[in-house]
């Protein structure tokens, strides 16, 4: 049996000079990395300890003491007799939802629009005037192994009618941000627009039978906007196309992409193949 504290905790003086906000951001990013990666455990504990020390000095009177937390643990949590964890992995739930959403075309894009409204209400302020998506990817390079491709040479294809582009542009979208290529057979079915005080979303649904490709433009006016995107286990890929950087990832066997700028995030969801999603993003001029 190992004794607690026998693993002498390493010191990381390079973190001590960072601000508390920066340290919190490091921990937040780490919480998205591989949970079984043990290489950063010592650093994590060191950073947490620094935050604890600083917070204790600032807010001594309101802090929950360890003894109080231990008492609470014994009184409220230890004797929960459930055989399962409080928070269970939800793969089964997500899989069922996905299968049924494919059968109801109109659910998907309406859900996306409303989801952004909900997420906007719960955004926490995190940023240091840096590209959030870039920093998450750069932190995760060791675990994600993100690969950066050269500028994709896929040529330019155009099959989207001007009428379709006009309809999307009518919602305030720059025409040069609208793809001129959508995979064969997909037709624009609906455009949904939603707004909150800090956020505007335009969600465009292109349907082909039971399948749907979503084009989503999220305009925000906050430096602290963050957005969480779910991906499966595979590594995301960075693609630089037309002087823009896209992150391509897979979720539920579909290819998705996102691109982040100062006040806009562009998402593309539900594309069947990698080749097709590259064609789509290559057709976006700006």
């Amino acid at each position, binding site marked *: 049996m190992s004794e607690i504290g026998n693993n002498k905790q390493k010191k990381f003086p390079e973190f001590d000079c960072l601000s508390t906000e920066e340290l919190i951001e490091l921990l937040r990013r780490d919480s998205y990395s591989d949970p079984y990666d043990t290489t950063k455990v010592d650093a994590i504990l060191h950073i947490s300890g620094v935050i604890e020390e600083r917070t204790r000095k600032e807010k001594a009177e309101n802090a929950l003491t360890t003894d109080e937390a231990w008492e609470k643990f014994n009184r409220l949590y230890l004797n929960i007799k459930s055989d399962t964890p409080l928070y269970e992995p939800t793969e089964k739930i997500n899989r069922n939802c996905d299968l049924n959403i494919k059968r109801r075309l109109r659910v998907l894009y309406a859900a996306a629009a409303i*989801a952004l409204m909900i997420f906007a209400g719960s955004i926490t302020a995190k940023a240091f005037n840096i590209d959030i998506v870039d920093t998450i990817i750069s932190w995760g390079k060791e675990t994600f192994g993100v690969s950066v491709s050269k500028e994709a040479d896929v040529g330019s294809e155009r099959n989207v009618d001007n009428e379709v582009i006009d309809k999307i542009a009518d919602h305030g979208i720059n025409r040069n941000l609208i793809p001129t290529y959508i995979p064969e057979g997909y037709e624009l079915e609906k455009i949904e627009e939603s707004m909150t005080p800090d956020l505007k979303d335009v969600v465009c649904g292109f349907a082909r039978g039971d399948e749907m490709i979503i084009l989503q433009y999220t305009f925000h006016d906050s430096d602290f906007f963050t957005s969480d995107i779910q991906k499966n286990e595979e590594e995301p890929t960075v693609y630089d196309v037309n002087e823009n950087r896209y992150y391509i990832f897979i979720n539920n066997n579909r290819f998705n992409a996102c691109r982040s700028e100062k006040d806009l995030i562009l998402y593309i969801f539900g594309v069947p193949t990698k080749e097709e999603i590259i064609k789509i993003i290559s057709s976006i001029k700006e």
Partner: protein
Amino acid sequence: MVGKDEKNVNVKEKIFIEKLYKSLFNKMYYYSLSALGRPEIAEEAVQEAFRIACSRIKVLMKSENPEGWMVITQKNVIRNIRRSQAAYNNAIISLLAESAKSDNVFTDDPEQRAVLHEIAKNEEFIMLKMISEGYSYLEISEKLGISIEACKKRAQRLQKKIQNNYF
């Protein structure tokens, strides 16, 4: 499982877990707070990690790095909390859209609509909304006047109800 193991936890194991708890709680708390943003859910995440630790006390005590073991457990709890919130968000989205759209985009089935309306009216909807907004089970249980365990079971039953009747 936790209950059974807890009865069999001997004095040495109790001392071990208490010592580990008191040495790590604050650090794990601030890690969770950085990840989840709210103090109450962050605290619950740590409590859950230690509850899991108690259920696997023998494995934990054999570990060469119990602190590392706890950090890994904590990260998994955080990941599951996020996924859980996202899953409940799906249900919330459906209910919000149903109530917001008069043209009944989602279903023409009167039985399904009845189920959705029934859920939206009562405390189950409140629970669902609170989970998706990042409240801890402890907070929800205090609001509804039930135990944490009962709260979790109700949430799971509700999730199943919506899936079976709507999806």
